[in-house]
Protein backbone atom coordinates (compact mmCIF):
# COMPACT_ATOMS: atom_id res chain seq x y z
CA UNK A 1 0.00 0.00 0.00
CA UNK A 2 2.77 2.42 1.03
CA UNK A 3 4.69 1.57 -2.13
CA UNK A 4 1.68 2.20 -4.38
CA UNK A 5 0.88 5.45 -2.62
CA UNK A 6 4.45 6.61 -3.14
CA UNK A 7 4.36 5.66 -6.84
CA UNK A 8 1.00 7.41 -7.29
CA UNK A 9 2.24 10.59 -5.60
CA UNK A 10 5.39 10.66 -7.72
CA UNK A 11 3.41 10.04 -10.93
CA UNK A 12 0.84 12.75 -10.16
CA UNK A 13 3.48 15.29 -9.16
CA UNK A 14 5.55 14.55 -12.25
CA UNK A 15 2.56 14.76 -14.57
CA UNK A 16 1.52 18.14 -13.16
CA UNK A 17 5.06 19.50 -13.59
CA UNK A 18 5.44 18.18 -17.14
CA UNK A 19 1.97 19.26 -18.25
CA UNK A 20 2.39 22.78 -16.86
CA UNK A 21 5.91 23.09 -18.26
CA UNK A 22 4.79 22.17 -21.77
CA UNK A 23 1.27 23.64 -21.87
CA UNK A 24 1.02 26.58 -19.41
CA UNK A 25 -2.50 27.31 -20.75
CA UNK A 26 -3.81 24.34 -18.76
CA UNK A 27 -3.80 26.62 -15.70
CA UNK A 28 -1.75 24.29 -13.50
CA UNK A 29 0.70 27.11 -12.65
CA UNK A 30 -0.45 27.66 -9.05
CA UNK A 31 -0.32 23.91 -8.33
CA UNK A 32 3.15 23.73 -9.84
CA UNK A 33 4.38 26.70 -7.80
CA UNK A 34 2.93 25.11 -4.67
CA UNK A 35 4.79 21.88 -5.40
CA UNK A 36 8.06 23.74 -6.02
CA UNK A 37 7.62 25.66 -2.74
CA UNK A 38 6.98 22.34 -1.00
CA UNK A 39 10.18 20.91 -2.50
CA UNK A 40 12.16 23.91 -1.21
CA UNK A 41 10.72 23.43 2.29
CA UNK A 42 11.51 19.71 2.14
CA UNK A 43 15.08 20.59 1.09
CA UNK A 44 15.44 22.64 4.28
CA UNK A 45 14.37 19.58 6.30
CA UNK A 46 16.80 17.48 4.25
CA UNK A 47 19.57 19.87 5.32
CA UNK A 48 18.57 19.38 8.95
CA UNK A 49 18.53 15.59 8.52
CA UNK A 50 21.89 15.74 6.75
CA UNK A 51 23.54 17.88 9.42
CA UNK A 52 22.23 15.56 12.16
CA UNK A 53 23.62 12.60 10.20
CA UNK A 54 26.97 14.36 9.87
CA UNK A 55 27.11 15.08 13.60
CA UNK A 56 26.03 11.51 14.46
CA UNK A 57 28.63 10.06 12.09
CA UNK A 58 31.48 12.02 13.67
CA UNK A 59 30.26 11.38 17.22
CA UNK A 60 30.20 7.63 16.47
CA UNK A 61 33.71 7.87 15.05
CA UNK A 62 34.94 9.67 18.16
CA UNK A 63 33.30 7.15 20.47
CA UNK A 64 34.58 4.18 18.47
CA UNK A 65 38.07 5.63 18.13
CA UNK A 66 37.97 5.13 14.33
CA UNK A 67 40.28 7.19 12.13
CA UNK A 68 41.79 10.53 13.09
CA UNK A 69 39.75 12.27 15.77
CA UNK A 70 41.22 15.76 15.15
CA UNK A 71 39.19 16.30 12.00
CA UNK A 72 35.96 15.19 13.67
CA UNK A 73 36.48 17.55 16.61
CA UNK A 74 37.34 20.44 14.28
CA UNK A 75 34.28 19.77 12.12
CA UNK A 76 31.93 19.71 15.11
CA UNK A 77 33.43 22.86 16.58
CA UNK A 78 33.14 24.67 13.23
CA UNK A 79 29.60 23.44 12.69
CA UNK A 80 28.37 24.38 16.15
CA UNK A 81 30.34 27.66 16.18
CA UNK A 82 28.96 28.81 12.82
CA UNK A 83 25.43 27.77 13.77
CA UNK A 84 25.68 29.65 17.09
CA UNK A 85 27.00 32.82 15.44
CA UNK A 86 24.35 32.68 12.70
CA UNK A 87 21.47 32.13 15.13
CA UNK A 88 22.66 34.53 17.86
CA UNK A 89 23.99 37.36 15.67
CA UNK A 90 22.11 37.17 12.35
CA UNK A 91 22.38 40.91 11.56
CA UNK A 92 25.95 41.47 12.73
CA UNK A 93 27.63 40.47 9.47
CA UNK A 94 29.61 37.80 11.32
CA UNK A 95 28.11 34.86 9.36
CA UNK A 96 29.00 36.55 6.06
CA UNK A 97 32.47 37.36 7.37
CA UNK A 98 33.04 33.73 8.36
CA UNK A 99 31.92 32.56 4.91
CA UNK A 100 33.92 35.13 2.95
CA UNK A 101 37.10 35.04 5.05
CA UNK A 102 37.29 31.42 6.10
CA UNK A 103 35.24 29.12 3.91
CA UNK A 104 35.84 30.74 0.54
CA UNK A 105 39.67 30.98 0.85
CA UNK A 106 39.82 27.37 2.03
CA UNK A 107 37.64 26.31 -0.89
CA UNK A 108 39.76 28.29 -3.35
CA UNK A 109 42.96 26.74 -1.96
CA UNK A 110 41.51 23.27 -2.33
CA UNK A 111 40.41 23.92 -5.89
CA UNK A 112 43.83 25.36 -6.72
CA UNK A 113 45.24 21.89 -6.09
CA UNK A 114 43.32 20.64 -9.12
CA UNK A 115 46.03 21.74 -11.55
CA UNK A 116 48.61 19.55 -9.80
CA UNK A 117 46.19 16.67 -9.34
CA UNK A 118 45.26 16.70 -13.03
CA UNK A 119 48.93 16.50 -14.04
CA UNK A 120 49.61 13.59 -11.65
CA UNK A 121 46.43 11.80 -12.75
CA UNK A 122 47.28 12.32 -16.43
CA UNK A 123 50.78 10.93 -15.85
CA UNK A 124 49.37 7.79 -14.21
CA UNK A 125 46.79 7.40 -16.98
CA UNK A 126 49.46 7.61 -19.69
CA UNK A 127 51.60 5.14 -17.78
CA UNK A 128 48.81 2.57 -18.15
CA UNK A 129 49.40 2.60 -21.94
CA UNK A 130 45.86 1.62 -22.86
CA UNK A 131 44.18 2.63 -26.13
CA UNK A 132 42.06 5.19 -24.24
CA UNK A 133 45.16 6.69 -22.66
CA UNK A 134 46.93 6.97 -26.02
CA UNK A 135 43.91 8.72 -27.56
CA UNK A 136 43.66 11.01 -24.56
CA UNK A 137 47.33 11.87 -24.77
CA UNK A 138 47.23 12.59 -28.50
CA UNK A 139 44.18 14.86 -28.22
CA UNK A 140 45.48 16.59 -25.08
CA UNK A 141 48.90 17.34 -26.61
CA UNK A 142 47.35 18.40 -29.93
CA UNK A 143 44.84 20.79 -28.36
CA UNK A 144 47.37 22.13 -25.88
CA UNK A 145 49.75 22.89 -28.72
CA UNK A 146 47.03 24.48 -30.86
CA UNK A 147 45.74 26.61 -27.96
CA UNK A 148 49.14 28.17 -27.27
CA UNK A 149 49.22 31.85 -28.34
CA UNK A 150 52.32 31.58 -30.48
CA UNK A 151 51.18 28.66 -32.66
CA UNK A 152 48.84 30.86 -34.72
CA UNK A 153 51.61 33.46 -35.03
CA UNK A 154 54.06 30.82 -36.25
CA UNK A 155 51.73 29.30 -38.80
CA UNK A 156 48.35 31.04 -39.34
CA UNK A 157 46.77 27.85 -40.68
CA UNK A 158 47.13 26.28 -37.21
CA UNK A 159 44.75 28.89 -35.82
CA UNK A 160 42.21 27.95 -38.47
CA UNK A 161 42.64 24.25 -37.66
CA UNK A 162 42.04 24.98 -33.99
CA UNK A 163 38.89 26.95 -34.81
CA UNK A 164 37.64 24.17 -37.05
CA UNK A 165 38.38 21.46 -34.46
CA UNK A 166 36.45 23.35 -31.78
CA UNK A 167 33.54 24.37 -33.99
CA UNK A 168 32.99 21.18 -35.99
CA UNK A 169 34.04 17.79 -34.54
CA UNK A 170 34.31 18.76 -30.85
CA UNK A 171 31.07 20.78 -30.78
CA UNK A 172 29.29 18.03 -32.74
CA UNK A 173 30.42 15.29 -30.36
CA UNK A 174 29.61 17.41 -27.29
CA UNK A 175 26.11 18.07 -28.60
CA UNK A 176 25.67 14.37 -29.39
CA UNK A 177 26.59 13.45 -25.81
CA UNK A 178 24.32 16.20 -24.43
CA UNK A 179 21.34 15.09 -26.52
CA UNK A 180 22.02 11.46 -25.59
CA UNK A 181 22.14 12.43 -21.90
CA UNK A 182 18.85 14.28 -22.25
CA UNK A 183 17.28 11.20 -23.84
CA UNK A 184 18.54 9.04 -20.99
CA UNK A 185 17.22 11.51 -18.42
CA UNK A 186 13.81 11.55 -20.13
CA UNK A 187 13.70 7.73 -20.18
CA UNK A 188 14.57 7.43 -16.49
CA UNK A 189 12.07 10.18 -15.60
CA UNK A 190 9.32 8.42 -17.55
CA UNK A 191 10.14 5.13 -15.84
CA UNK A 192 9.86 6.78 -12.43
CA UNK A 193 6.59 8.49 -13.42
CA UNK A 194 5.17 5.19 -14.68
CA UNK A 195 6.27 3.38 -11.52
CA UNK A 196 8.60 1.06 -13.50
CA UNK A 197 11.51 2.35 -11.45
CA UNK A 198 11.09 3.22 -7.78
CA UNK A 199 14.33 4.62 -6.38
CA UNK A 200 12.39 6.50 -3.69
CA UNK A 201 11.26 3.33 -1.90
CA UNK A 202 14.51 1.37 -1.99
CA UNK A 203 13.24 -1.62 -3.97
Amino acid at each position, binding site marked *: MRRWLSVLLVALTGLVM*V*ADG*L*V*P*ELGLGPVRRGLVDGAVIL*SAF*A*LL*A*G*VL*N*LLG*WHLRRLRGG*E*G*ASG*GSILLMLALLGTATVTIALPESGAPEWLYAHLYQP*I*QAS*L*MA*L*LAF*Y*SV*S*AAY*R*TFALRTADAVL*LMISAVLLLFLQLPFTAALLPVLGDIRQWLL*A*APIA*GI*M*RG*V*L*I*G*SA*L*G*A*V*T*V*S*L*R*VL*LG*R*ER*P*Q*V*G*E
Partner: protein
Amino acid sequence: MNALADLSSVAGCLWLVALALYALATWLLDMRLSRRQRPLRTITVYERLAGLVSRSVETDAAVHLSLGSGSLLTEAPQVASACALGQRLMEGALPRALCTCGSPTLYVAAAGALQGAAIGHGGEQQTARERPSVCLVGTEAAALAPGAWDAADGRQLAGEVFFGPFGAEGLLLAEGSPTVSPERLVGTAEIDALVGLSLGASAWVVGEDVYAARAYAHKDGQQGGLALQDAIRVVLLLAVLAGLGLRLAGWGG
Protein backbone atom coordinates in the same frame (compact mmCIF):
# COMPACT_ATOMS: atom_id res chain seq x y z
CA MET B 1 0.34 37.85 -30.05
CA ASN B 2 -2.60 35.49 -29.59
CA ALA B 3 -1.48 33.52 -32.63
CA LEU B 4 1.97 33.17 -31.08
CA ALA B 5 0.47 31.93 -27.80
CA ASP B 6 -1.71 29.47 -29.71
CA LEU B 7 1.32 28.22 -31.60
CA SER B 8 3.28 27.73 -28.37
CA SER B 9 0.31 25.88 -26.89
CA VAL B 10 0.11 23.60 -29.93
CA ALA B 11 3.87 22.94 -29.72
CA GLY B 12 3.51 22.10 -26.01
CA CYS B 13 0.65 19.71 -26.75
CA LEU B 14 2.73 18.05 -29.46
CA TRP B 15 5.60 17.60 -27.00
CA LEU B 16 3.19 16.05 -24.48
CA VAL B 17 1.95 13.64 -27.15
CA ALA B 18 5.53 12.83 -28.15
CA LEU B 19 6.39 12.10 -24.51
CA ALA B 20 3.34 9.87 -24.16
CA LEU B 21 4.33 7.97 -27.32
CA TYR B 22 7.90 7.65 -26.06
CA ALA B 23 6.59 6.25 -22.76
CA LEU B 24 4.33 3.82 -24.61
CA ALA B 25 7.17 2.67 -26.88
CA THR B 26 9.45 2.18 -23.86
CA TRP B 27 6.79 0.16 -22.07
CA LEU B 28 6.04 -2.02 -25.11
CA LEU B 29 9.72 -2.66 -25.76
CA ASP B 30 10.23 -3.47 -22.06
CA MET B 31 7.51 -6.10 -22.36
CA ARG B 32 9.03 -7.51 -25.53
CA LEU B 33 12.58 -7.67 -24.19
CA SER B 34 11.66 -8.76 -20.66
CA ARG B 35 12.99 -12.31 -21.16
CA ARG B 36 16.25 -11.18 -22.60
CA GLN B 37 19.04 -12.05 -20.18
CA ARG B 38 21.99 -10.52 -21.95
CA PRO B 39 22.39 -6.75 -22.05
CA LEU B 40 22.20 -5.05 -25.41
CA ARG B 41 25.93 -4.36 -25.44
CA THR B 42 28.85 -4.45 -23.05
CA ILE B 43 29.55 -1.45 -20.84
CA THR B 44 32.80 -2.00 -18.96
CA VAL B 45 31.82 -0.15 -15.78
CA TYR B 46 28.78 -2.34 -15.21
CA GLU B 47 30.72 -5.49 -16.14
CA ARG B 48 33.38 -4.65 -13.56
CA LEU B 49 30.87 -3.86 -10.85
CA ALA B 50 30.19 -7.55 -10.21
CA GLY B 51 33.93 -8.18 -9.86
CA LEU B 52 34.20 -5.29 -7.43
CA VAL B 53 31.44 -6.72 -5.23
CA SER B 54 33.09 -10.18 -5.31
CA ARG B 55 36.46 -8.71 -4.38
CA SER B 56 34.85 -6.85 -1.50
CA VAL B 57 33.32 -10.06 -0.15
CA GLU B 58 36.49 -12.13 -0.67
CA THR B 59 38.87 -9.64 0.91
CA ASP B 60 36.40 -8.27 3.48
CA ALA B 61 37.32 -4.80 2.24
CA ALA B 62 34.88 -1.92 1.87
CA VAL B 63 33.47 -0.42 -1.31
CA HIS B 64 33.21 3.36 -1.31
CA LEU B 65 30.39 4.78 -3.40
CA SER B 66 30.40 8.55 -3.83
CA LEU B 67 27.26 10.09 -5.29
CA GLY B 68 28.67 13.55 -5.96
CA SER B 69 27.37 16.91 -4.87
CA GLY B 70 24.52 17.81 -7.22
CA SER B 71 21.08 18.53 -5.86
CA LEU B 72 18.22 16.06 -6.17
CA LEU B 73 16.02 18.96 -7.27
CA THR B 74 18.06 19.50 -10.45
CA GLU B 75 19.64 16.10 -11.07
CA ALA B 76 16.84 13.68 -10.17
CA PRO B 77 17.21 11.24 -13.13
CA GLN B 78 20.97 10.93 -12.61
CA VAL B 79 20.46 10.43 -8.87
CA ALA B 80 17.87 7.70 -9.59
CA SER B 81 20.44 5.87 -11.74
CA ALA B 82 23.16 6.32 -9.14
CA CYS B 83 20.83 4.92 -6.47
CA ALA B 84 20.08 1.89 -8.70
CA LEU B 85 23.80 1.21 -8.96
CA GLY B 86 24.20 1.81 -5.23
CA GLN B 87 21.42 -0.67 -4.46
CA ARG B 88 23.32 -3.33 -6.42
CA LEU B 89 26.45 -2.59 -4.39
CA MET B 90 24.52 -2.66 -1.12
CA GLU B 91 22.93 -6.02 -1.97
CA GLY B 92 26.27 -7.57 -2.82
CA ALA B 93 28.74 -5.95 -0.47
CA LEU B 94 26.74 -5.80 2.76
CA PRO B 95 27.82 -4.53 5.28
CA ARG B 96 31.05 -3.33 3.73
CA ALA B 97 29.61 -0.52 1.65
CA LEU B 98 30.19 3.12 2.46
CA CYS B 99 28.20 5.77 0.62
CA THR B 100 29.11 9.45 0.78
CA CYS B 101 27.46 12.49 -0.78
CA GLY B 102 27.82 16.26 -0.74
CA SER B 103 24.25 17.49 -0.84
CA PRO B 104 21.50 17.20 1.79
CA THR B 105 18.78 16.28 -0.73
CA LEU B 106 21.08 13.65 -2.19
CA TYR B 107 21.69 12.28 1.29
CA VAL B 108 17.97 11.89 2.01
CA ALA B 109 17.38 10.17 -1.36
CA ALA B 110 20.37 7.85 -0.95
CA ALA B 111 19.58 6.98 2.65
CA GLY B 112 16.04 5.99 1.69
CA ALA B 113 17.00 4.02 -1.41
CA LEU B 114 20.20 2.34 -0.24
CA GLN B 115 19.35 1.51 3.34
CA GLY B 116 15.94 0.31 2.12
CA ALA B 117 17.74 -2.01 -0.30
CA ALA B 118 20.05 -3.21 2.47
CA ILE B 119 17.15 -4.04 4.77
CA GLY B 120 15.32 -5.80 1.94
CA HIS B 121 18.33 -8.07 1.29
CA GLY B 122 19.02 -9.52 4.68
CA GLY B 123 19.98 -6.36 6.48
CA GLU B 124 16.99 -6.59 8.83
CA GLN B 125 18.99 -9.09 10.89
CA GLN B 126 21.74 -6.57 11.40
CA THR B 127 22.02 -3.84 13.94
CA ALA B 128 22.05 -0.23 12.77
CA ARG B 129 25.82 -0.16 13.31
CA GLU B 130 26.39 -3.14 11.01
CA ARG B 131 24.29 -1.76 8.16
CA PRO B 132 25.98 0.01 5.26
CA SER B 133 26.76 3.62 6.04
CA VAL B 134 25.21 6.43 4.05
CA CYS B 135 26.57 9.76 5.15
CA LEU B 136 26.49 13.39 4.18
CA VAL B 137 30.11 14.52 4.30
CA GLY B 138 29.74 18.16 3.31
CA THR B 139 27.12 20.55 2.07
CA GLU B 140 29.07 22.10 -0.78
CA ALA B 141 31.16 20.74 -3.61
CA ALA B 142 34.59 21.52 -2.13
CA ALA B 143 33.58 20.02 1.24
CA LEU B 144 32.63 16.73 -0.42
CA ALA B 145 36.21 15.71 -1.21
CA PRO B 146 37.83 16.21 2.24
CA GLY B 147 34.69 14.79 3.88
CA ALA B 148 34.87 11.63 1.78
CA TRP B 149 38.64 11.29 2.37
CA ASP B 150 37.92 11.46 6.09
CA ALA B 151 35.04 8.96 5.92
CA ALA B 152 37.17 6.39 4.07
CA ASP B 153 40.23 7.08 6.23
CA GLY B 154 41.68 3.96 7.80
CA ARG B 155 39.51 1.58 5.76
CA GLN B 156 40.83 -1.05 3.45
CA LEU B 157 39.05 -0.48 0.14
CA ALA B 158 38.23 -3.09 -2.49
CA GLY B 159 37.32 -0.29 -4.84
CA GLU B 160 35.71 3.08 -5.31
CA VAL B 161 32.73 4.03 -7.43
CA PHE B 162 32.14 7.69 -8.29
CA PHE B 163 28.74 7.79 -9.87
CA GLY B 164 26.42 10.78 -10.10
CA PRO B 165 26.37 14.55 -10.50
CA PHE B 166 29.98 15.67 -9.98
CA GLY B 167 31.75 18.92 -10.71
CA ALA B 168 35.45 19.77 -10.59
CA GLU B 169 35.58 18.39 -7.05
CA GLY B 170 35.45 14.88 -8.54
CA LEU B 171 39.12 15.07 -9.51
CA LEU B 172 39.96 16.42 -6.06
CA LEU B 173 38.12 13.51 -4.45
CA ALA B 174 39.74 10.93 -6.72
CA GLU B 175 43.30 12.17 -6.65
CA GLY B 176 43.66 13.64 -3.18
CA SER B 177 42.47 10.63 -1.24
CA PRO B 178 45.08 9.14 1.11
CA THR B 179 43.29 5.76 0.90
CA VAL B 180 44.64 3.55 -1.88
CA SER B 181 42.03 1.70 -3.89
CA PRO B 182 42.84 -1.00 -6.46
CA GLU B 183 39.94 -0.07 -8.72
CA ARG B 184 38.03 3.09 -9.50
CA LEU B 185 34.84 3.08 -11.57
CA VAL B 186 33.43 6.39 -12.74
CA GLY B 187 30.11 7.49 -14.21
CA THR B 188 28.67 10.94 -14.73
CA ALA B 189 26.33 12.54 -17.24
CA GLU B 190 28.41 15.74 -17.34
CA ILE B 191 31.19 15.51 -19.89
CA ASP B 192 33.10 18.38 -18.22
CA ALA B 193 33.28 16.49 -14.93
CA LEU B 194 34.28 13.28 -16.68
CA VAL B 195 37.43 14.85 -18.12
CA GLY B 196 38.93 15.07 -14.63
CA LEU B 197 37.33 11.96 -13.20
CA SER B 198 38.34 9.65 -16.04
CA LEU B 199 42.02 10.32 -15.40
CA GLY B 200 43.27 7.41 -13.36
CA ALA B 201 39.94 5.55 -13.51
CA SER B 202 39.82 1.83 -14.32
CA ALA B 203 36.66 2.30 -16.39
CA TRP B 204 34.26 5.14 -17.02
CA VAL B 205 30.88 5.80 -18.50
CA VAL B 206 29.38 9.07 -19.70
CA GLY B 207 26.17 10.44 -21.16
CA GLU B 208 23.09 8.30 -21.67
CA ASP B 209 24.86 5.09 -20.57
CA VAL B 210 24.85 6.51 -17.04
CA TYR B 211 21.06 6.35 -17.11
CA ALA B 212 21.20 2.67 -18.07
CA ALA B 213 22.55 1.72 -14.64
CA ARG B 214 19.38 -0.04 -13.48
CA ALA B 215 19.06 -2.27 -16.54
CA TYR B 216 22.72 -3.34 -16.35
CA ALA B 217 23.18 -3.57 -12.60
CA HIS B 218 19.94 -5.42 -11.86
CA LYS B 219 19.24 -7.12 -15.21
CA ASP B 220 15.53 -7.03 -14.42
CA GLY B 221 14.19 -6.82 -17.92
CA GLN B 222 13.97 -3.03 -18.25
CA GLN B 223 15.84 -2.94 -21.51
CA GLY B 224 13.13 -1.47 -23.71
CA GLY B 225 14.17 2.08 -22.94
CA LEU B 226 17.77 1.20 -23.76
CA ALA B 227 16.81 -0.29 -27.11
CA LEU B 228 14.81 2.83 -27.91
CA GLN B 229 17.65 5.09 -26.78
CA ASP B 230 20.13 3.12 -28.90
CA ALA B 231 17.88 3.46 -31.95
CA ILE B 232 17.56 7.21 -31.42
CA ARG B 233 21.30 7.39 -30.81
CA VAL B 234 21.98 5.85 -34.22
CA VAL B 235 19.72 8.50 -35.76
CA LEU B 236 21.58 11.19 -33.81
CA LEU B 237 24.95 9.80 -34.87
CA LEU B 238 23.86 9.93 -38.49
CA ALA B 239 22.65 13.49 -37.94
CA VAL B 240 26.00 14.48 -36.38
CA LEU B 241 27.89 12.92 -39.29
CA ALA B 242 25.59 14.59 -41.81
CA GLY B 243 26.07 17.94 -40.02
CA LEU B 244 29.84 17.43 -40.04
CA GLY B 245 29.74 16.62 -43.74
CA LEU B 246 27.63 19.69 -44.52
CA ARG B 247 29.94 21.89 -42.45
CA LEU B 248 32.96 20.46 -44.26
CA ALA B 249 31.23 21.14 -47.57
CA GLY B 250 30.90 24.78 -46.54
CA TRP B 251 27.21 24.81 -45.61
CA GLY B 252 25.95 26.50 -42.45
CA GLY B 253 28.75 29.11 -42.07
